């Protein structure tokens, strides 16, 4: 039997043993073995496995006698067995601990597999060259070859727990009945399979609300993006035009909506357009345009128009600045050539300016579309999704999916249904952005 396979089998049984016994890398093998000892140690120290094997535990059950890992897995699978605040199981704590333990186990498993592969390669190299590599030499080799991994490991672990774990949790919640009728610690949460998804599409009150909101969500995203994009482009062309005076002065003013913190702007507009006390509605009466206060934010249709207009106010300066940058870079020779060929201004715009500008700003356009689709801030801070629509399930006329999810989570505590919607939203936005990135230059160069 050659040394590679021998080392691999040894390391598969006791971590690091292949490296020590076959490869003669004592320090390295010992380090690997210590990691295994640590993992097994944690499990044994926190559990009662030794007592169990010695026959001291008559009625074995994982919840009481399991170690850290087995107990966490038990919690993940059962989500608790006894409800109650005092001695009961808190299903959500169990679920999160389970996810964390599974993430750790995946890391440990990856390390275990690497240990076997490394033992195999160590043995194989000895078979081929007959030379033993010391731990010290290996360390030097490792720091140069595995440098990227060494640097990235802490960051990856951070992302794993702060970003990935919460996302996994909210995905997994979609397959449980975690809602206000099953709130731990008074109640237990259970796995319910895909019944939440079935509910969303089969139960009329859910599906009709979902599709109505989705419809407005799509209209909103498309109109919001197109309106800001084209107003921004128009404004950029106007400012760039040779007839415009005081260019930098106008530019400084027009850029303000982009510069002022958005939350403040939205709260200001919310008050400015307040149907009851707001000065705009009052002013329109005073100057005789209307004889009643226009419900800018409380009429279903007017509120939608208001949202789109406010978004236009907020959003056009970014595109204006971006498109101005592109316009400045267009080769003026192209315009002269077109003019010599007898093209008029409109033809020049359609044939030269627009294609060049759109090509340069297309990724930005699609990114903006995706972010408008999830434009929580503008909906929530302007109208909070109101006015409430009695035909909708816990939603208002101006709600988009993400603000509906927010309400379901924070006000209604329907974490399960909110999670289902999260998954759908994630797929929609994910596909759009993925398509976008695949067609941009920076991705092709990876």
């Amino acid at each position, binding site marked *: 039997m050659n040394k590679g396979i021998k080392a691999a089998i040894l390391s598969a049984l006791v971590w690091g043993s292949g490296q020590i016994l076959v490869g003669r890398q004592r320090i390295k093998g010992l380090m690997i073995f210590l990691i295994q000892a640590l993992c097994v140690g944690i499990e044994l120290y926190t559990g009662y496995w030794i007592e169990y094997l010695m026959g001291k535990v008559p009625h074995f059950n994982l919840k009481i006698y399991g170690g850290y890992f087995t107990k966490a897995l038990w919690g993940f699978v059962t989500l608790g067995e006894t409800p109650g605040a005092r001695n009961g199981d808190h299903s959500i704590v169990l679920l999160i601990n389970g996810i964390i333990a599974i993430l750790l186990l995946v890391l440990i498993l990856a390390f275990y597999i690497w240990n076997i592969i490394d033992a195999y390669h160590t043995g194989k190299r000895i078979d081929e060259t007959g030379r033993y590599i010391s731990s010290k030499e290996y360390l030097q080799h490792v720091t140069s070859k595995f440098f990227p991994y060494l640097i990235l490991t802490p960051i990856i672990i951070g992302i794993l727990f702060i970003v990935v774990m919460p996302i996994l*949790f909210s995905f997994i919640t979609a397959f449980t009945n975690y809602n206000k009728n099953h709130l731990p610690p008074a109640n237990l949460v259970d796995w319910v399979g895909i019944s939440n998804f079935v509910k969303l599409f089969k139960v009329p009150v859910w599906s009709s609300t979902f599709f109505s909101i989705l419809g407005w969500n799509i209209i909103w995203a498309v109109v919001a993006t197109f309106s800001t994009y084209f107003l921004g482009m128009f404004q950029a062309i106007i400012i760039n035009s040779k007839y415009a005076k005081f260019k930098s002065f106008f530019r400084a003013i027009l850029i303000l909506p982009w*510069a002022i913190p958005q939350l403040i702007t939205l709260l200001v*507009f919310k008050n400015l357009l307040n149907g009851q006390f707001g000065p705009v509605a009052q002013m329109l009466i005073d100057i005789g345009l209307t004889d009643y206060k226009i419900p800018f934010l409380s009429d279903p249709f007017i509120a939608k128009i208001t949202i789109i207009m406010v978004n236009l106010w907020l959003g056009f300066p970014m595109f204006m600045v971006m498109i101005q940058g592109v316009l400045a870079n267009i080769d003026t020779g192209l315009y002269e050539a077109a003019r010599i060929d007898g093209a008029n201004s409109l033809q020049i715009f359609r044939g030269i300016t627009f294609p060049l500008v759109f090509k340069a700003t297309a990724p930005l356009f699609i990114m903006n579309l995706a972010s408008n689709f999830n434009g929580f801030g503008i909906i929530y801070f302007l109208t909070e999704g109101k006015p409430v629509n009695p035909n909708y399930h816990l939603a208002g006329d101006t709600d988009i999916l993400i603000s509906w*999810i927010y309400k379901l989570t924070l006000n209604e505590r329907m974490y399960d249904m909110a999670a289902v919607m999260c998954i759908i939203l*994630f797929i929609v936005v994910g596909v759009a952005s993925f398509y976008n990135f695949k067609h941009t230059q920076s991705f092709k160069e990876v």
Partner: protein
Amino acid sequence: MKKWIKMVLVNLELIIMSIIVIVPVIWVVLSSFNTSTSLATSSLIPKDLTFNNYVELFTKTKFATWFINTFTIACLNAVVAVLLVLITAWVLSRFNFKGKKAGLMTLLILSMFPSFLSMTAIYSLFVALGLIGKPLSLVILYAIGAVPYNVWLVKGYLDGISISIDEAAYIDGSSKLNTFFKIILPMSKPIIVYCAVSQFMFPWMDYILPNLILTGEKNYTVAVGLYSLITGKENSYFTIFAAGAVVIAIPITILFLIFQRYLAQGISAGASKE
């Protein structure tokens, strides 16, 4: 004659747009000097002007504490996030290793998930770690959360710095980390400024996460505090809110206007690299 009409039309359009943009801004600024406190009586142009709202902002509310909280979070976030993002982007830009493309794809997908949708889990995790109610716990969330969002952008920028500069440094005996800190870092000033400023500005206006994690008025950030002033209390605190809005908006707006060149460069560099 035709030129003359065009000139009038173009400049008229600019004047009208500027008025539309500037009126709400002026209204808030004037409101913050308004003598009455309620929204209903704050007409578009107030009759008397007073500094009282600014005085009350600092005496009646905990605005000063909110400001210090937010400022601390913003500064720490700018430093930590920039360091994490740059190191990650530098490794991804300069080294070839197994799983790099998959890693970049994963970061891209992660950045698409609206972060606050996972707030239940973050909340439970922070309860378990005892981090609820501590303003600094937000820095952890912001700084690590910034990595997936900014890595692509910064990597794109670093790709533009010729690798022969690195190689020359290695030949001169510079170590990898030394090359990063002494050579790459000074050369990436524009993108560092872009990341630092955007990370600095973010905590000022983020509402959802601080609202969830920071309990108790003394732990609020400015966004949560200002929002609490006008929800359901339009009639007693509106002008104080306006004063607070002005106090926050002026420095942030000036900062933005100074750095907008970097912002424009940063966004377009990341969005379309050709």
